[in-house]
Every structure is written in C-alpha cells, then in structure tokens.
C-alpha cells in the first residue's frame, strides 16, 4: 500500500503545497472543534458540580470574530487556488502540441510527425507539452494523477491541457468522466522520457508521413481543392478567387466575419469552418461551402487542419 503519489510535473508540487495547507487548516479547525466538544462533554457533564458562572448574553462580538476569521482564511485559499487554476489554462507558446482523441473506451494519441499511439502518451521532460483533445462520442476526461492535471474531453470541441513533465518514468493515465461500460478499462500510461530518448522514440515510430502530408492527401480526397485551389491559393483565375477564401497565411491571422466580429483563425475556427461553415462565415463570401459534419472523421479533420496550418508561414505546430 503506497501512501505517496509521485509529483512528476512542474505544477505538481504547487498543487501539493495547496493541498497540504488545506489539510493543515482542516486539522487545526478539527482539533479546535473536537477539542472543545470533548472538553465541554467532560467538564460540563450534567453530573459535574463545577461552578457554571454567568452565561454570556451578548453573542455578536464572538460571532463576528469567528465569521471574520473564516472569511479571511477562505479568501486567501480562494486566491491561491485561483492562481494555480488560471496558470493551468495559459499554455506557454512554445509548447509541443500533441493531439488526443478519446473514443469509447480507448485513447488515440497523434504526434505532429505522424506517430500514433493507443492508450499511451510519450512526452519529453523539461518541455511544456500541450494536449489538444476532442472526443468522438461521449464526454471523457484525460487525467494524469502524477502530474495533478485532468480535463474533460468534450465531443464537438477542442479542449486543451498543458503540463511540463519533470521526472522521467511511467505514470497512470485514467479516464475520470463516466463514459459507459468499460470506463474502468479506458486507462493507459504516460511515459516521460529524457529529450534524447524521446527523439529516438520518435524515430522508431515514424510512419514516414507527417500529419500535414496526410492532410494534403485528404485535402484532395474531400475536394477542398475544387474551390480553395491546388495548394489552397484559390484557383488561378481571379473570378474564382471570390468563391472561397485563400488559405495560405490564414492560420493564426485575424479573420473578420459577417455579424461584425473578428476572431483569430485557430484550430477551433478551422474546425468550425469545416463542420458548419455558415456559422463563422468570412465577410464577403457566399455561404456555398457544404458542411463536412459526419463525413470527415476526427483524425482526418486533424490532419486537414494540420495541412492548412502548414500552408501558413511560421511554425507548423
């Protein structure tokens, strides 16, 4: 029976400090409550003859004292917890992005270079890793207790989770949102490796075709080239360029939409644009793009998005 959970990521010790602080406060309050209760039970039991003295009439001074103390302590705990939480939602820009797809009772993981894993996740240590996760059916939850992180994986949306592994080793991976019959078997292992080991592992499992390359093939297969042109540069003739927006340089740049809002063209925007194009229509284009919802599997979608992003300058993360 081990009573100790390895703290294998950079934020794990901070979460542990918060939990130990909460534990300390709880034990202190428990000693106060249990101590007073036992003291009164013994000292003021009906048989004892000790002098009870005058009963305190005005109670509000005491009441406001312990209310104020509780409020102060709680506000401090809230701030500490909130600080950790907000940092959990701000992945550093240089994070290595790995795609995770939850499916009823298994985890599929895809690296940029095309390496694929089932119920396993190999990550380098001392480098921030950002998981971009979606689900193909019900809500799952990608949870790594040793890294003190978990986040629900929702169908129809991308959810992100980032951590920076610190100590190499193999740690548990659990699905912690009830997802059906074999929810208990939807587990796996997270292997944190030193940088060189990770590079060697990538080489061994390199399928020879990066996500972007796979995406290019799918781009042709699904007929995107018909409107957006061979390499997404909108077909040669100027007339056609009004049919569909140009794709090179799109990823990461601001896009102005009908209805007046402008948002950044990130993964979620590209996904929405493919699955229900009319929702986030670019200003100046007719809603003629068909919806690919239900036609394109999650893996293909991720690969096509990787390809579109590879057309833009800058990183192909």
């Amino acid at each position, binding site marked *: 029976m081990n009573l100790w959970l390895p703290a294998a990521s950079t934020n794990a010790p901070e979460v542990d400090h918060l939990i130990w602080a909460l534990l300390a406060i709880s034990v202190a309050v428990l000693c106060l409550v249990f101590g007073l209760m036992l003291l009164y039970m013994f000292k003021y*039991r009906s048989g004892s003859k000790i002098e009870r003295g005058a009963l305190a009439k005005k109670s509000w001074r005491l009441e406001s004292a312990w209310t104020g103390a509780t409020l102060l302590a709680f506000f401090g705990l809230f701030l500490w917890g909130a600080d950790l939480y907000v940092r959990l939602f701000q992945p550093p820009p240089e994070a290595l992005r790995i795609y995770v797809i939850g499916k009823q009772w298994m985890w599929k993981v895809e690296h940029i270079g095309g390496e694929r894993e089932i119920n396993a996740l190999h990550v380098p240590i001392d480098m921030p890793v950002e998981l971009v996760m979606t689900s193909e059916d019900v809500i799952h939850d990608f949870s790594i207790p040793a890294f003190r992180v978990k986040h629900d994986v929702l169908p129809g949306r991308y959810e992100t989770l980032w951590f920076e592994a610190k100590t190499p080793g193999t740690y548990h991976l659990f699905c912690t949102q009830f997802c059906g019959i074999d929810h208990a078997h939807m587990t796996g292992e997270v292997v944190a490796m030193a940088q060189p080991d990770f590079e060697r592992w990538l080489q061994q499992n390199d399928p020879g075709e990066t996500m972007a390359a796979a995406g290019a093939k799918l781009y042709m297969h699904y007929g995107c080239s018909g409107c957006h042109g061979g390499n997404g540069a909108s077909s040669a003739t100027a007339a056609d360029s009004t049919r569909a927006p140009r794709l090179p340089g799109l990823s990461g740049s601001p896009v102005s939409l009908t209805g007046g809002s402008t948002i950044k063209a990130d993964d979620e925007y590209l996904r929405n644009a493919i699955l229900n194009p009319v929702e986030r229509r670019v200003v100046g284009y007719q809603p003629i793009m068909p919806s690919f919802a239900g036609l394109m599997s999650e893996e293909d979608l991720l690969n096509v998005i990787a390809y579109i992003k590879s057309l833009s300058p800058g990183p192909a993360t």
Partner: protein
Amino acid sequence: MSTDSYLTDGDTLRSWLLTTDHKRIALLYLFTITGFFFIGGSAAALVRYNLITPEGMIHSAETYNRLFTMHGVVMVWFFLVPAVPVSLGNFLVPLMLGARDLAFPRLNLFSWYLFLLGGFIVLFSLLMGGVDTGWTFYTPLSTAYSQGYVVWCVVGIFISGFSSIATGVNFIVSIHRLRAPGMTWFRMPVFLWSLYATSVILVLATPVLAMTLLLLAFEAIFHIGVFDPALGGDPLLFQHLFWFYSHPAVYVMILPGFGIVSEIIPAFSRKELFGYKFVVWCSIAIAVISFLVWGHHMFVAGTSIYSALVFSILSYMVAVPSAIKVFNWLGTMHKGYIRFDAPMLYALGFVGLFTMGGLTGLFVAALGADVHLTQTYFVVAHFHYVMVGGMVSAFFAGLHYWWPKITGRMYPEMWGRAGALTIFIGFHLTFFPQFILGYLGMPRRYHSYSPEFQTLNVLSSAGTLVLAAGYLLPLAYLTWSLFHGEKARDNPWAATGLEWLTHSPPPTENFAETPRVTGKPYDYPPPEQAAIT
C-alpha cells in the same frame, strides 16, 4: 398513553390510505423512505463488495455500473432529499406551530401518492433493465449511448419532484399563516426555520430539475440535439441545468439536519441555543447562496475560466454560514449540563462528521486542488461525510428524540447509544480511507482499479459491514420498542417547544385548545429547578 391518540383514531386500511392527518401521512412517508433507504443501502453494500479485489468481484462491469447508479438515484431522490422534511417535518411542523394541521392537507396526501408513483416507476426501470449512466445522467452518454431504461427512470424522478414541490409549498404557507398566537418569527424553534429554508430551495430548485429531465427525455426519444453537440446542442447546458438543482438539493439534505441538531443540543445541554438569531439567519443565508455555487461541480468540465473563478469564490461564501452554525452549537454546550442520551450522541456525531465533511469541501472549492481531486474518491468521501455522516446521523438523532412523541413509547436507551457508536465507528472505517484513495488518484465509478489501491479499498469494504450493522440495529430495537417499549410521558426530555405540551402520541386534533406562546423558544433553566427523573 391516552386511548384516543391519532394512532387509534380509525384502524381501517382506508382510514390510513386516505387520511389527511399530517401525523398519519408522516408515518406513511416514514415507512416508504425506510424501505428506499435499505434498497439504496444494499446497492451500496454490493458496490463495496465488488471493490474488494482490483479486477472486481462482480465480473460484469455493466452490473456494477447499474448498481452504483441505483445506489445514487434511490439514495438521492428517494431518501436523502425527502427524508427529514416528509417524515419528521410533516409530523412536527403543525405541532411546533401550535396548529391543528398543515395549510393544504389534501395536497399533503397527494404528495405521498406522487412520491410512491415516482418511486415505483424508478424501481421498475432500475430492476427491469437498469440505468448505466450514474445518477448524474450526463449527456450525450445518457441520451445517445446508454442502453438502460434512462427515460423511464427520468419520468419517475420527474413525478417524485412534484411531491417535493408540494411539501415545500405546504410548509412555507403553513409557517407563514398558521403560527400560534404569540409565536412571532423569532420565537419559532430553529427546526421550523431550517424547514422553511429547505422548502424555499425545494420550491425554487425542483422545477428546474423537472424541465431538465423533460429536455433529457425529449433528447433521448427524438434525438433533437439540445444537448448533443453533433446536432448543435451543448452538453454543458445539461450540466448547468442539472447542477442548478442538484447543489441546492444537497442543502435540502443538510438544512433539516441543522434544524434537528439545533433542537437537540440545547435540550441535552439544558441551556439556551447560543446565538439564536445568527443560527436562524445562517439557515436563510444558506438557502439563498446555495443557488449561486453550482459551477464548482464543473471546474474541469470545460466551462470558462471566469465563471469558474466566480463559482469558486461563491462556494467559499456558502461555507461560512455552516461554520458559524458549528461554532454556535459549541457555544451552546459551553457551561451547559450535558446528558449523553442517544439523541445527543447522534447529534454530537453529526457535529463531528459534518465538520470533517465541510472542511474537505474547502479542498474541492479551491480551484487548484479541485483539478487534482475532482472525479476521484476524495469527492466520494467528501459528500458521503456530509450526507451520511451529517444528514443520516441527524435523521437518526431526530428519530430517537421525537420517538416518544410519535409512538408514545421510549426506545431502549442502552441499545440507542450502542447504535450511535457503531454507526460512528463503522462510518469512519468506511469513508476515511477513501480520502487517501482520492488523493492517490483512484477515479470514482471504476468497476476495476489498479492493484496498488487494494488495501485501502478492502479497509473501506470492511467498514461497510460495521456501518450496515450500525443501521440495522436501530431498525431492530425501534420496531421492538413499538410493542414492548416503556410507555413514554408527554415530555420525557423536559424540553421546550409546543410539541411537548400535548400528549404523546398526540390526539388527532393535536391540541385541546390552541396554545399561546409567551417566551423565547429555548429557555432551559439549570437542572436544579427542572428535575428530570
């Protein structure tokens, strides 16, 4: 025992099944919820039996999923939410008010039949095909991917929800309109205040549950996409609507417990309740703030950061009134003349266990810690400490305290104390190891788990046996006391409160003439003056 009590006033089946006497309806409810308590309890015992070995004693995960769902559904909607308000509440509210019955007696009887109908439909769905979604029915699992009788189960809960609304309306209107002459708002016992706060939550939260379950049933039948992202809906909408009801519902479970303990501790410390006004305003504050905090169930569910921050600070605010209550109970015991009868032991058990449950609530309200601790056995232990350690202990305390008034018989004192201690020990043995399991990361609702968690799980399953024995003990000696218990006097505890002015068991019309209230509710003189034999 006076011959013409409400028990002997007509003994045909019809006089019981068509009664509008709040005391008889309370007994009908008491038998019903006891039945549901033991159904839910046996499901829990099977769940713990399965978790003895890492690969699970029950070989099929499907059966295990249906068992813990049954445990959740039956315990939440058919024992914890109704328990105190419908049994002790129905019996005592008119008596404590000095009234002859509740404001709408026929509505009260109708609410029992609704409760029964909802209960049978849910039991039918649980036993026929079983529901495998957990009592939280998260979509799209419950609407698109579940094989169980989810729609039937949801209809059953929908119907029993109206029984809660009816009870809530009855209590609120009765407390407003039927108080005895002289009983101003601040001369009312705290038990009535806590039932008032509970009824406010029942009336205002249950309708949202009704609509949520209706939307869920429509989605499951017609696949209309309200919650299914493939068709444009948002699964988080279901979670928001569900927890908008379900968090106030956990305060529906604990508030009556506060009321009972605030009655018992002054009675057995022979001392006035410390800070009466603070305890009263804390109950009202809990009823209001409990509606603002439901987001803390969804910190990792994918809601926005800002709403998580707002819900976290509000969750800390709702913990303050509960802390104030605990300090006031201790203040009451200070310089008191404490007697250790069974009700007092249960009440002290409540204070201890509820404090531990409440403090672990601070862990999961802190955003940083919640990310690690949520969806693990830490949360399971937290809400069992508050609900089983808190609410069920308070329910047993109230049951023993008012047993002479309800049945006219005294429960066997030594057996009562033995029951209290067994439950206290069995409870800790069952649920304390789960805190450690939760920190180590063992997820909840797992049919099989990794081997390193086995020792703590075996410890917890062993504790379940002691706890089960602890719960069967009162069932035995209370039933025994119905026939062979010593005759109870009208006021065995020399307690204050209008319910102790009438006979036990009280006549059908409660009071010969409506009592007048003159003083504060808890003026207990030190024992030299009021000798209790």
